[in-house]
Structure formats: structure tokens, C-alpha cells
């Protein structure tokens, strides 16, 4: 079970003056159960890339295999792919439209062809897993807070029982607590349901804290692909393309420069703390 991208190219507005190659020869293998972070500045090709993964955008050339099947085969069931690969767009709460929260979450499974009862069960389960209080289920989604609306929108995708969940900047515009809550929720789903998660984010701190693999996009190409500690080692190169490393990584490098032998690969507060404490203790 995996997604394989083989030499995927995508060109916007082919044959016009605005022709832009958004993806250039992308080769990637996404294994089952991974938690992946995609980073890259605006216009680097992140969103185009994720839209390929559930067939919203068709590659200009190259192939994509989902669980061993070529998704561009004539008889490939694209509809099924879209339920297996759930995509949560940026500001997904803008897509809420039903009169009650429950109906909104039922929309996806109903569209999948499930009957009312089955869809209802799915909706219940999904709303429960995003931690929305039951008392709210039959209220209008528009009266919720920003963070709650976003949970409902995520539940709408979860109700389709995807195997892969892709989230495009799920924490944009949320307050710090709301940010942590959404990310903890995603991490929980990853752990408990062994769902493959692909997280597009502008926050290096969040990416470092949660994911186990980072893909850095730049100019339509994969610039780096590896463990957070490996990728953030290239903080100078990342800066050159409008990205950065987490603040603590910079601190660790600066400490090292001053002759304090800390672990330069630390990317989270926890790692940095442990390394600094260790060095301080062995020094005393």
C-alpha cells in the first residue's frame, strides 16, 4: 500500500504566455502509515503536488500509482481514489454549507452512495473523533468558533474513511491553543488509525514537532526529502529559498559555534532542552 509518483510533470496554461511548469519530474514514494510534512514557499508547487495525489489535477506527463494501480488507467475508479485520499483544503470551514453540523458531515458519505443510516453512523463516528461536543451536532455550523468549524470540516473528510489524509495548512488563522488541538488531533488519528498523513505547513516548528519525514518543495522540484533533523541541517539553503529552520535549531548551531558541544540536529524544544541539560551537567 503506497502512493508512487513517477516522473510527474505539470504545466499550467500550456501554450499560452502564462505557461508555468508547476511540477518538474517529481519522483516520490509515500509508504503506508507515514506522517509527512510538505514545506515550501508560496508558489513552490506544494498545492499542485497534493492535488495530484487524489486526482484533482492530472499530470501533464508521468504516472501515479495508488496501491499498485495506475490512476490514469482508463478503467481506474477515480471516484474511489477521492474517497481513499481525503483532501482538506486551506480554510476548509469556508466549504461548510448545510443547515446543521451533522448534515454537513453526512454529505460526503451520502455522495459515496451510502444510505442515510450508514452515512449517519459515519458522521457520528467522525464528529466524535474530532472531539466536537455532542450537544452541538444539530446546530448550525456557522455559529461555531473558527477552530470548531475547522474540526467539522475535517470530520466531513474523515466520514469518507480515507486511508490517506492530506491537509493544506490546517492551522492557518487559528490561535496557538487551536493550532495545538488540531495538530494533536491529526497526530492521534495517525497513531490510532495508522492513517497516512500529509501535512502542508508554513510552520517549521509544527513540522519539526509532529512529522517523521519532510519533503521540501522549491520551484516545482523536490529539494530535500528526509527526517526533520536531516532536512533542517540545511537551514542556510532553506533560507535561500524563503524557508527557515525552527528557532531552536538556530540556537543550537550558535551554541556550537561558541564552543558549547550541544546536539546541532535538535529541532524541537524537547530535544534542545535535553541536549542543553546534558551538556551543562557533564560540564559541572
Amino acid at each position, binding site marked *: 500500500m503506497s502512493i508512487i509518483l513517477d516522473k510527474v510533470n505539470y504545466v499550467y496554461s500550456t501554450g499560452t504566455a502564462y505557461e508555468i511548469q508547476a511540477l518538474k519530474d517529481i519522483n516520490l514514494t509515500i509508504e503506508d502509515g507515514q506522517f509527512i510534512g510538505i514545506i515550501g*514557499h*508560496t*508558489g513552490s508547487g506544494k498545492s499542485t503536488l497534493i492535488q495530484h495525489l487524489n486526482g484533482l489535477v492530472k499530470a501533464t506527463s508521468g504516472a501515479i500509482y495508488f496501491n499498485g494501480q495506475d490512476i490514469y488507467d482508463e478503467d481506474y475508479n477515480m471516484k474511489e481514489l477521492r474517497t481513499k485520499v481525503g483532501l482538506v483544503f486551506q480554510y476548509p470551514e469556508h466549504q461548510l454549507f448545510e443547515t446543521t453540523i451533522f448534515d454537513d458531515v453526512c454529505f460526503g458519505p451520502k455522495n459515496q452512495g451510502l444510505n442515510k443510516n450508514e452515512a449517519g453512523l459515519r458522521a457520528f463516528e467522525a464528529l466524535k473523533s474530532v472531539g466536537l461536543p455532542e450537544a452541538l451536532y444539530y446546530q448550525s455550523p456557522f455559529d461555531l*468558533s*473558527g*477552530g470548531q468549524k475547522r474540526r467539522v470540516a475535517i470530520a466531513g473528510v474523515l466520514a469518507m474513511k480515507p486511508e490517506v489524509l492530506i491537509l493544506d495548512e490546517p492551522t*492557518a*488563522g*487559528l*490561535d*496557538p*491553543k*487551536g*493550532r*495545538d488541538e488540531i495538530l494533536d488531533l491529526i497526530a492521534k488519528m495517525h497513531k490510532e488509525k495508522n492513517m497516512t498523513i500529509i501535512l502542508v505547513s*508554513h510552520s*517549521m*516548528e509544527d513540522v519539526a514537532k509532529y512529522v517523521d519525514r519532510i519533503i521540501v518543495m522549491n520551484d516545482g522540484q523536490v529539494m530535500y526529502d528526509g527526517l526533520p533533523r536531516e532536512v533542517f541541517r540545511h537551514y542556510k539553503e532553506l533560507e535561500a529559498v*524563503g*524557508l*527557515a529552520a*525552527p*528557532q*531552536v535549531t*538556530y*540556537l543550537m548551531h*550558535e*551554541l556550537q559555534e*561558541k564552543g*558549547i558541544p550541544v546536539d546541532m540536529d535538535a529541532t524541537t*524544544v524537547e530535544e*534542545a*532542552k535535553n541536549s*542543553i*541539560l546534558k*551538556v*551543562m551537567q557533564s*560540564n*559541572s
Partner: protein
Amino acid sequence: MGIIKASKLVHEYIRRDEEGNVESIQTAIDHVDIDVKAGDFIAVLGHNGSGKSTLAKHINALLEPSEGTLWVDGKDTKDPKNTYEIRRAAGMVFQNPDNQIIATVVEEDVGFGPENMGVPCEEIWTRVEESLKSVGMLKYRSHSPNKLSGGQKQRVAIAGVMAMEPKCIVLDEPTAMLDPNGRKEVLRAVHELNRKKGVTVILITHYMEEVVDADYVYVMDKGQVVMQGTPRSIFSQVEKLKEHRLDVPQITLLAHELKKSGLAIADGILTREELLEALEKLYHRKG
């Protein structure tokens, strides 16, 4: 009195049913007192729904107080006669750059505000040029805004406000939709305006890192000002901020955690340089 002064300001959102009976009342601002000195860089923190944006809309006279008074540049926002002048004195920049840009060419967008105010043509061009220069966007003056990055668009929006020559500019989460580079560009532009032109800045944000350089910080929760002070005094209260659904910059958090683990580090460390210095001292003293 400062350029913005609120005295026991209250705002209630009142929902009515079809017959006009009151269905529910939500108090978004609850007896807020603030006093902002001209030329200051003020940050307002608070979680979603804490009342920050409602407060911002009051400063621009988009909303009228339910109780209490707000003066902008000495003018009471409750008096409709003042509305026009208040909006000239306090410009506003919103979260989504795409919702604020209306023209097809950057310089025309920036000129829209002063043109609306009846500024003579000659002067409009001077203002357009100057404000685009002040946000570092002059070379894009004849570009189409829809080809710009988020950070660039947001800087055009700021230039559009600057062209109206306000004394004060209110930015409501101007960087929420931007990538790290865009965020940096916008913040730099806002700080420049504050430093070089003496424009009073009210920055509403969720990013703790953006608050570090402010002169004064207000923290809002449930419509009330629950904390206020310099960034250092605010960020030295890590646990209290967390109670209000906020956090602290990553470096401050690391310093706090190290202190909790027994290292002799001061409270309220804000920058990498400060923490670096503290750790260096500690290391060499022991060694």
C-alpha cells in the same frame, strides 16, 4: 489622552429573531480600558473569539460602542459626525490580501484611497510613490496585483492605507495567510513605518514571535484585557498565557523549560541572542 483611548468600552452583538425580539446577547468587548500613545507599536494578543477583531473595528468606527467611550485622535467614535475623520486617522489592514485589493494595477489600487478623499491628482501620485517606496513595492507599481505573492499583496494593501496618511494603522492578523518570508516582509514594512514615519501601529496577531519587538502588549480574553505590559513582562508568564489559549515564542519556551529543570536563567527571555548569552555565561562559569 493618547491617540487611542478606550474607557469602559463595551460591545454587544445582539441577535434578533424575525419579529425583532432579542434572541441572544454576546458581549464581545467587556469594559475595556486602553490608552495608546502616539507613535507606539502596540500588539494585541488573544485567542480566536477573544474580542480582538471587534476592538479593531471600533478603532476604525466600523462598530459603535454599546457602552463606554472610545476616542480616536481625540474624537468620540459614537458621534457620527466624527466617523469620516476617524477613518482618516486610523487606517485598517485585514487578514486576507485578496479581499482588499480592487484595482488591476498596483499603483491604481494604492491611489484609490486618496482619490476617494478628494486629494488633488498631483499629490495622489506623490503619495502613491512614497507609500509604495515605504513598503518596498515601488518597482511593482505597474504590475497586476494578482501576480504578486501574498506578502507582496499585503504590502500593497498597507501602502494603500499609508497613501491616506493616517496617524494610526490597525492590522488585523495581517500575516495569518502568509508564508514565513511573506510574514517577515510585512513585519519589516510595518516596523519601518512605525520607526521612520512615526505611525502608531496596532498589530493584532496570533504569532508570538511578531510581538517581541512591540512597545506594549495587551492580551485579551472573553472581551477583557487580562494582561498588559512590555513583551518581556508578558512572556515571562508562560503558564498564565497558556491559560488564555496562547503560548510564547519557541525560544522563550525553551528558556522557561531549562529554568524549570534547574538552570539559572532569567524569566522572559525573548530572543536567541539573549538565551545564547545566558547559556554561554552559565557554561563558562561552571567550566
